[in-house]
């Protein structure tokens, strides 16, 4: 666990044993090649060392078959390893079943996480065992990278679109959370802890008062980083309420009126549906589309409307955007 000397990192996710297996296979293949080549070099260098009677090399015939043969071996082995790696990779990029969705924002130099019920924490991430956790990640400034070695997952966190990854913790414990992409002065301080507990303990933690689970310093930063009044009004129980509050605070409702689509299209219920755009293309409404519609509102114009919506880039916080998305999702009633 945390802080022990070891040669291999602990395996704490459902994925870790698979990755390690592949890793050991790679080690084995490499060892074979390294040993064979080094032994051959040593043997040849000794056996055919220059000495009286061996001043001149012996004649050797080249066989093309030999060349083909030793090209095919690495090709063949390589293809196996490639396929193995690609299969696991697709698994990493697949959508997990019924995950807990946690939202994370990376900024110089901290991690902020928000649990589905609105519970937030900084640099600590509580997750339960036995259930997939889907991380939706965004950066507020430069590129960061969400990295938990014990889970063998890493995902870059970029500023212009959501990226996501998932894991299913298997072992309770406390693990390192690193920022793996260089992001400036305190890059190596952009670290945290992943605290894996039993599902019951996780529920208990969710229900506990805010300060607990993080240091007082964290709590202060949390308040500082909070997205204005709108956010603080959010009730923990209703996932859409905070988003609705944001929309009122930001004045979105002036145009996006419930039940009135003359000024602007309805937002309620659109998640997961297909929207036709002014330029004839059809897009599916997902997290990235909604985020882009808010921040770069003119990138994609809905058919039948004018591009009058202001771009909110720099005006709303990532947490608030996420809240609006949650609101739209909640009103769409789908479990996406």
């Amino acid at each position, binding site marked *: 666990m945390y802080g022990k000397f070891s040669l291999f990192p602990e395996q704490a996710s459902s994925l870790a044993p698979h990755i390690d297996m592949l890793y050991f296979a790679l080690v084995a293949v490499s060892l074979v090649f390294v040993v064979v080549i080094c032994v051959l070099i040593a043997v040849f260098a000794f056996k055919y060392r220059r000495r009286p009677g061996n001043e001149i090399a012996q004649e050797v015939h080249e066989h093309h078959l030999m060349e083909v043969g030793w090209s095919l071996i690495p090709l063949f082995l390589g293809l196996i390893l490639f396929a193995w790696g690609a299969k696991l990779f697709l698994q990493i990029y697949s959508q997990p079943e019924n995950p807990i969705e946690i939202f994370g924002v990376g900024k110089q130099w901290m991690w902020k996480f928000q649990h589905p019920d609105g519970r937030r924490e900084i640099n600590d991430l509580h997750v339960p065992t036995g259930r997939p956790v889907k991380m939706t990640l965004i950066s507020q400034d430069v590129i960061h990278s969400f990295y938990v070695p014990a889970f063998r997952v890493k995902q870059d966190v970029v500023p212009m679109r959501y990226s996501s990854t998932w894991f299913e913790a298997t072992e309770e414990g406390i693990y390192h959370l690193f920022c793996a992409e260089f992001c400036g002065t305190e890059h190596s301080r952009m670290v945290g802890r992943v605290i894996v507990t039993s599902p019951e303990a996780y529920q208990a933690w969710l229900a506990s008062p805010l300060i607990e689970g993080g240091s007082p310093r964290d709590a202060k930063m949390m308040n500082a980083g909070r997205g204005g009044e709108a956010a603080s009004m959010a009730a923990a129980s209703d996932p859409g309420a905070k988003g609705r509050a944001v929309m009122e605070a930001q004045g979105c409702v002036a145009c996006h009126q419930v039940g009135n689509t003359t000024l602007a299209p309805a937002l309620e219920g659109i998640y997961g549906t297909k929207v036709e755009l002014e330029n004839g293309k059809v897009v599916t409404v997902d997290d990235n589309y909604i985020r882009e519609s808010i921040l770069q*509102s003119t990138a*994609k114009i809905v058919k039948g409307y004018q591009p009058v919506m202001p771009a909110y880039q720099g005006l709303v916080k990532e947490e608030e955007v996420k809240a609006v998305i949650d609101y739209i999702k909640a009103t769409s009633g789908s479990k996406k």
Partner: protein
Amino acid sequence: MSSDANPYLAHHFDDIVQQHESVSLGMWIFLLTEIMFFGGIFFAYTIYRFLYPDMFHAMSHHLDVTMGTINTGVLLTSSLTMALAVNAAQRGMKKRLVTMLGVTCAAGVIFLVIKYFEYAHKFHVGSVPGRLWTFETEFGNQAQLFYSLYFGATGLHGLHVLIGVVIIGVLTILAWKDKLPQGRAQRVEMVGLYWHFVDLVWIFVFPLFYLIGRT
């Protein structure tokens, strides 16, 4: 090595054919690097146009088609005169060489002057990306992407024109002073290749920036 006597033969070549072929292959490889150089910008262009087609169409309207068209005509004409200059050099026709080089150089200057007015207009209305940006469109900051690419592409191209103008200017003077005899025709030919390449880039820049979404 009968050609040792050739005054234009550099010391390390065996004969003039070898020298000629080396120089022209060298020039082409240089142009190859230029292709990749401009390629980088066109890569970025493709991606952003794919991502933001509407914005590209709308922003293209703010470029001046008249000036762009005139400039294209100017460059195409200069390409012709350059080709004629190369021909004149190869045939040792001094007067014609000087005229053609002079016209080419002048065309380059005209191109730059027109470009200057286009740029000046952009500065005036504030459609220069970055700190000077004050351009109000419904696309907000996103429009800066288009102009960044526009200034990146036309700026680099303009720089190439400028370099070309200087080189051709020098050639004109050399030719005028009888320093470009037939035996040195390859110099003109190589500069010609460069100039045609600059023209080629513009042939693509023009429709891709000025002429999209005009309907």
